[in-house]
Each structure stands twice: as C-alpha cells, then as structure tokens.
C-alpha cells in the first residue's frame, strides 16, 4: 500500500512539473505564434490578390472584415452581420440584423475598435452588450473585403470543409462578380505524395479564372492533366520566355470551361476541394447579395 502511494505521488508530481514547464512555454510563445499566424494570413491575402515582395501592394489597399453571426432569440433565428462603418470620423462597427430569408430586421451600433474586432472573444463581448441577455450569438464565418480607393477589389473567404482525412482549410479569393481570383490551401492533413498534392500549383491554380457560372457546376474529371496545361499552371517555375502573351491567353481560354483535373490517386481529396470551393462560392454569393441589398435599402454607410 505504501508503495502504491509513493508511486502515485511521484507520478502526480512529475505530471505537475511537466505541465508547469509546458504551460510556461506556451504562455511565453503564444504571442509570437499569434503574430506569425497573422503575418502568414496577411501574406496569403496579398498573394491571392497578386501582390508580392517584387510587386508591393499599393498604399490605398484596405482590408475590411465582415463577420457573420447567427442570433438566437428564443426559437427564432436571425442573421447578424458585423459590418465596418464610419462613425464620428473613426472606423467602428454596426450590426445589421436580418431574418433567414434576407429581410431587414434592424441595425444596431456596436462600439468596438478595428483592432479588437479581429479578436473573436472581444467581438462576442461587444455583441452581447448590444443585443441584451436573452439573445445568444453563434459565430458563422468571416469575409474579408479588399478595397482599393472607392472600388471593391475582391472578397477573401477563409473557410474549411472535410477532406479525405480531416478538415482542409483554404482561403478563396473572388472578384466582385464572384469569379475566382485564386485559391490557397492553408492547412490540411492529407497523405503526402497523394492528397497533399492539393497544395501544389498544378492543382490549386486550376480554379483561377473560373467564372461564377462555371464554378456553380464545377466537378472533377479523372483524366491525365495535359502536359502543356501543367506547365502553364506551375507559374513559379516559368523561365524567361516560356510562354508568349498569345500562348498564355490561348491556354487560359482553352481550359477556362473545363472541370478540375483530379490528382492521380487522390480523387477524393480533389473532389473535396472542388466541392468545397463550389459550395463556398454559391453560399457566399447568395449571402453577399442579400447583405448588399439590405445595406443599400437601409442606407447603412458601410466602409466596404
């Protein structure tokens, strides 16, 4: 009995010490990690819009976050969009509430700074203050709207959907007519050499330039990827003069209306991504349409 007690105490103590060490390491690195993630996100967003170190983003490029929440009031459900507005000369947020059919219900002023709005708990706190206790909010998703001057440049949609193994999270860039500007795979755990190929240029760049009409019915085909198209998609490996301007245009036109060529040996992963992109685009275009309509009819002075 004494032995058992000693072993129990020794193990408990070791676990406590280990937990303390790991906890300390976590606390010390959490801030730097968050910063890295934000930086990576920012870089991805700029990359999808075609900006890089070699081609820096213009100074009048702005990103605005729109956050969708589901508001539960007893049995009734509403959609609440947190939209950036200009109030008193400074950027602030307002909540536009509509019912599930997209009919306007009300708008509320929120008081939250743009920095705090990037933080999920802060947002929920502000929402709870504005809505009052009986109503509960559930986070839906985020849309980032890129704006240059007075012109809407693109919608950036972070999203995730089930892949072959676990969730695949992506960032999708759409232009104002919902044409795909680009796709970036942020995180996934597909098999290396098979499903993991979704992050390769020859797969993800196939979505680039597909129009909204085409994306609505996009699917995968189990055919080998034509050699010339593969070269065209692998943009980062292009050497000087690999393609002439006319060739680029011609190849782009030839494959514009084609489905997505599935990765050999990873049809399921390929199909998950193409289905995911299709569903995200379809849902987003519907939601953005109703939000824009409500905003216009109510005269909400949004920043995007």
């Amino acid at each position, binding site marked *: 009995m004494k032995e058992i007690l000693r072993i129990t105490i020794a*193990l408990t103590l070791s676990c406590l010490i280990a937990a303390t060490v*790991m906890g300390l*390491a976590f606390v010390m690195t959490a801030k730097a*990690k968050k910063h890295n993630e934000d930086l990576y996100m920012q870089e991805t967003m700029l990359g999808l819009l075609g900006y890089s170190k070699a081609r820096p983003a213009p100074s009048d490029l702005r990103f605005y976050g729109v956050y969708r929440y589901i508001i539960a009031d007893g049995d009734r459900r509403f959609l609440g969009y947190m939209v950036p507005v200009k109030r008193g000369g400074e950027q602030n947020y307002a909540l536009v509430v509509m019912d599930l059919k997209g009919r306007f219900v009300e708008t509320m002023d929120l008081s939250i700074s743009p920095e705090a709005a990037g933080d999920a708990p802060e947002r929920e706190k502000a929402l709870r203050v504005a809505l009052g206790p009986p109503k509960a909010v559930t986070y839906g998703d985020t849309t980032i709207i890129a704006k240059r001057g007075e012109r809407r440049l693109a919608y950036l949609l972070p999203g995730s959907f089930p892949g072959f193994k676990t969730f695949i999270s992506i960032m999708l860039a759409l232009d104002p007519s919902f044409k795909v500007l680009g796709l970036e795979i942020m995180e996934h755990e597909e098999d290396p050499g098979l499903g993991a190929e979704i992050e390769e240029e020859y797969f993800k760049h196939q979505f680039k330039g597909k129009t909204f009409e085409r994306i609505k019915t996009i699917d995968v085909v189990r055919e080998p990827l034509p050699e010339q198209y593969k070269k065209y998609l692998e943009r980062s490996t292009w050497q000087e003069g690999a393609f002439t301007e006319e060739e680029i245009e011609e190849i782009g036109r030839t494959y514009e209306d084609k489905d997505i060529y599935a990765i050999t040996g990873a049809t399921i992963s390929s199909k998950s991504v193409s289905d995911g992109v299709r569903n995200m685009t379809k849902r987003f275009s519907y939601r953005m349409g109703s939000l824009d309509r409500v905003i216009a009819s109510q005269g909400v002075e949004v920043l995007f």
Partner: protein
Amino acid sequence: MAARTKTNKELFFNGILNENPIFRLALSMCPAVGISTTVMNGLLLGMAVLFVQVFSSCTIALIKDYIHPRIRIPTYTLTIATWVTVIDLVLAAYVPVAYKAMGIFVKLIVAFAIITMRLEMFASKNSVTASFCDGLGMGLGFMFAMMTLGFVRELLGMGTVLGYDVLGFCPLLFFVLPSAGFFVVGLMMAMFNYIEIVYNRRKKVKR
C-alpha cells in the same frame, strides 16, 4: 552508480561512430526510413532530435536519484514529451518557416526509441556532464546518419542535393519511396561494418 570508463570526449564520439544510433544500434528505424528522403529533411529532424536528446538526458541525469525504479519508463516518456512540446512551441513561434517544413516530424520524436534507450542505459546512471556529452554525441550521430541517408536517397531518387539540381536527370524514383529506405540503411550499415573491419585489421598489422 556505474563506474565511468570513458572520458567526455570519448562519450561524444561514441555516439557519432562506435554506437551510431542508426548504423550501429539500428534504433529509430521508422524515421530513418520514412523521413530521410532529402538532406534538408534529415538535417531538420536531426536538429530537433539533438535538442530533445540533450535536454532529456540532462533532466534525467539531474533527477535520477528521485525516480522510483518502478515508474522509470513513464517518467522518461513524460520528460521527453515535455521537451518535445516545448521545442515544438518554440519552433512554431520563432522559426515559422522551418516549422512549416518539419512541424509534423517534431511531434513524432516522443516515440523515438533512441531517446528512451539513452535515458535508460546512460543518463539514469551517470552524471549530468557525462549525460550531456552522451546526448550531444547521440544526437549528432543521428543527425549525421539522417543526412547521409538523405544525401544518398535525394541524389539517387531525384538527382538533386539540398534542392539544387546536380545530375540534371532523375535516376531512380524508387529511392525516395519509403521501401527504398530499408535498402539504403542496409547498404550503409554494411559499408560502416566493412570500414570498421578494414580499420581494425590495419591496426593489428601496425602492432
């Protein structure tokens, strides 16, 4: 406490040559086969193992007198897991580029046989300094083995070294596949054994 028969310098080189974890002890074969596809992968994993091995060896050498003999192994595992987590967090926070490439490998280190084995065989019986040298030697030995394997496999499998095209063509794709890892490890073991035999024979002749 077992009597120490080797100096710190001998302990250090022991891990790299005489008792090289992969080529001589044939431990931790899973990562050797699975991950040593390129020189860079070998180097990255080798460095992570080096840190975990040194830290764990020192920790166990420090607390060896307080470990209940019945729960040695759980304590070792706990120590290794703690250090792996710490290194994982630090890498993710301060070297995000390297972390992106080696993130999944780092978590696997918890299950590496070589680290537990060194704690059981060496660190739990020796002083902190000796354990440090042993850990450093073993870690470097592992890194050296992984890089050698990576070099052979990358060169033969993809025709490149550290990502630079050297051969200009791709001789045998087979070498980057996991099964080829066994072949390369076997061949390298044979080579090291042969070198040792020749070396010992020469020494005898000299005498």
